[in-house]
């Protein structure tokens, strides 16, 4: 069987823009109110990787967001980057990878696919559990931490980056590929492209989620960091200190 052109599913996560998030100075509590949402950076890498495969080999790109009503804005941006069809599954209550994996795998099972591409993990919780959980629920192999994807007619070659060496893996379709940040530089759609993409239909569905209590957050306070607050006005005095500190850090 020849898989070209590919059916690709890309999983997109929408998170709070943590770069804009402040913490309460006295309690260390994160202030989430008024913080805008954005597409998780690794999801952008995943979309970009999928779009590049589509541009090179042809195929259809389906984007899925497990989120809420507000996730359509993220899907519009994904459309602007190159996603063909978007599905937003409402009902995300957060922070339980088991639930997310179950909801997403149920949806994925109903769609034709050769590759599922997603980010390794996400910057809001950093569990990194979703790719593995999906793999087990779908019974489809996972090629994780990919820095390059080279799909062929029957199989896909993925370069996985480890601490000090790379591993090249081959897998038969269908596969799940989780990507690392180094895989590409995601393109930035122009505002007008996002508006144009916004005219396209987004399928809104609702998942019934009961269990989201298996994980409890005990604390989400920002760690206290003490700074030395040394100020050098004269560059001549500062440079020796800085070079010493950098050298020590490099040892």
């Amino acid at each position: 069987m020849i898989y070209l052109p590919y059916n690709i599913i890309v999983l997109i996560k929408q998170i709070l823009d943590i770069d804009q998030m402040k913490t309460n100075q006295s309690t260390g509590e994160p202030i989430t109110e008024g913080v805008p949402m954005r597409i998780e950076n690794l999801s952008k890498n995943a979309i970009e990787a999928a779009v590049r495969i589509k541009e090179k080999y042809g195929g259809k790109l389906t984007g899925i967001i497990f989120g809420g009503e507000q996730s359509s804005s993220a899907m519009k941006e994904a459309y602007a980057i190159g996603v063909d069809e978007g599905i937003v599954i409402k009902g995300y209550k957060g922070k339980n990878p088991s639930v997310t994996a179950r909801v997403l795998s149920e949806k994925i099972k109903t769609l034709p696919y050769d590759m599922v591409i997603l980010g390794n993990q996400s910057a809001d919780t950093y569990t990194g559990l979703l790719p593995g959980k999906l793999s087990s629920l779908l019974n489809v192999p996972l090629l994780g931490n990919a820095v390059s994807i080279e799909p062929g007619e029957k199989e896909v070659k993925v370069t996985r980056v480890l601490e000090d060496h790379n591993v090249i893996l081959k897998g038969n379709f269908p596969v799940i590929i989780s990507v690392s940040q180094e895989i590409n530089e995601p393109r930035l759609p122009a505002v007008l492209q996002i508006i144009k993409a916004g005219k396209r239909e987004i399928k809104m569905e609702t998942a019934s989620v009961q269990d989201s209590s298996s994980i409890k957050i005990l604390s989400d306070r920002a760690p206290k960091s003490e700074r030395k607050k040394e100020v050098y006005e004269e560059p001549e005095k500062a440079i020796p200190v800085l070079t010493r500190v950098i050298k020590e850090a490099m040892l």
Partner: protein
Amino acid sequence: MAAGIVSPTLVFIPELELIILYVTSFSAAIFVLYWWYRSYRCLGISITAILDYIRKNWKAMISQALSYGAFHKKTAKNAYAGVMHLLIFYGMLILFISTSLIALSHDILKPLFHFGILTGTFYLNFEVWANTGGLMLIAGLCMALYRRLAKKIKLESVFDDYILISGLIILSIEGFFLGALKIALFRNGFDIYRYIEWYLSYIFPAGMNVNTAIQVYRELWLVHILTAFALVIYLPFSKFSHIALSWTNVAIKKFHPRGQLSTPFLLSEALETGNIDFTVGAKEVANLSTPMKIDSLACTNCGRCERACPAVLSGSDLDPRLVVQNVKAVVYNGKVEMVPGILSENAAWACTTCQACVEECPVLIDPHSFVIEARRNLVMENKISKEAGQYFNNLTNTQNPYGNSPSDRDALLKFGPKYDSSKEVLYWAGCMGAFDPRGKKIAETVMGLLTKAGVNFGILGSEEKCNGETARRMGEEGRFQELVLQNIDTFKKYNVKKIITACPHCYNTFKNEYPKFGLQVEVVHHSEFLAKLVDDGKLKVRKTDETVTLHDPCYLGRVNGEYDNTRFIVSSFGNLKEMEKSRQNSMCCGAGGGNYWYKVKSQDSISHLRMQQALDTKATKLAVACPFCNAMMDDASRSMDAQNKIEIKDISELISDNLEN
């Protein structure tokens, strides 16, 4: 009076040759006129549209054609080239009028009505003018030839240029010799009014054979006529086409504030109507607007833009002359991609939008608008560098280029009160004022001076958002307009009446770009506001013997024509020593058009070139009026090890340093 003063007719020229003359001159005129019309017809402009345009705009057309064409309002800017062009232009104009008068008198009035107009004193005046015209033309052409041969300036010389210059010199010399020969034959006393030809006539021997002389005259006359028509026929194919195309361009130019870019769409309208099927920017030459195509036709390849362009001076691969010339070469076909067909991707980003090219162009071409259209398309095709992408991302996420938290802007509230409706003026600190350490100090200084002078002002703190200037100039129209709408909402909420900006770029954007989107407020740059406070005696400055040089920011000076306030401030305490390039000829610091935020490939850095010019004045202080210029010059002085030689200060800091109390 024995013979009566009359213009000699072409008595020696046989009828056949005269018929040749009439036929060729008539067809040449038709040919040139048709080519002229066809130049615009081929851009899809119909004859009815042309006539309709003339009917509606003839007054402006005449005044612009006179001031920019006949009176050389911009051509004369450069002394040598200006004098040269004036001599050629008026020389040819005088000769054209003279020849037309001869044709009218001899070929129309005499045969049909049996009288001539070239008689008596009028004729004598006419001959003085005609000889002077010929002299001016030859002088101008010699200057042009020398300019090209001496190669003292960067000037592209092709074979075409030499054909034209030498062709015209030959034509003028032929004309003088024809006149001289005729004088030698008849030698009337009043011929001395043809003062060049009179003296020239003595080279013909007094006792020459009359028949031989007439034979020589006839042959020379035929050569003269053929040279003239050869040049006329050559006109459309040569640089001389500018006589028609450039004059047309200056006549039909629609003026708009220099600091206002074209608006390819209105975001608010698009969002409301849902109609978003428009193209933004130019992927191909064919996508350029018709006025821009007409602009390209007008280009004479004179190279003034190129010699003023900081991107050219720094050795990048952008060349405004080539951009326009490349467009001109394919303007009718149009099937050439702007990038890389007209300019490279690097060149497209190398433009600092300083508008030195716009200032220079004698025929009102806007070379930088071509770059903007190319950028707009690059952005739509996501062909942007990582740094540019980061810039846009930060703008979208945090409404400032740094990606810093918007609430950090509130830190400035330590130095000035929050704006509310009781305040008279809004001080707009800008992103540099809020986030750049040096910019912050300048903002503090300005607010200190405003407080001291008792100005009832306020700032917006975290309600301030980037006004989108750089996004627009980087071709991201959508992000620009998003920010415009957000900021205008804030201004409306507080009913803002007057804004003081810290940055000339903010100043230009509020003044020239925002009105299109519905903002009607008074906008001043802090240099103007502070100069007024000094002038009114609300800020008292003491005189020092410091020598200070001044860098004109492009968006205050050349783009908005404001040169005097900064000079007033400098002169109020110190001795102003101008740089070689100042006022409208000032050179960009290298930051504009987004260049502060990304890097392009070039041999030198623009800021280093400018810093050297400042150092050449031997001044001990460099006054700047823009936070970006400040940062660029500061950086240049560090890497050129010039920090001990010259101190870089904002105009507000200089006031503050020299306050009397």
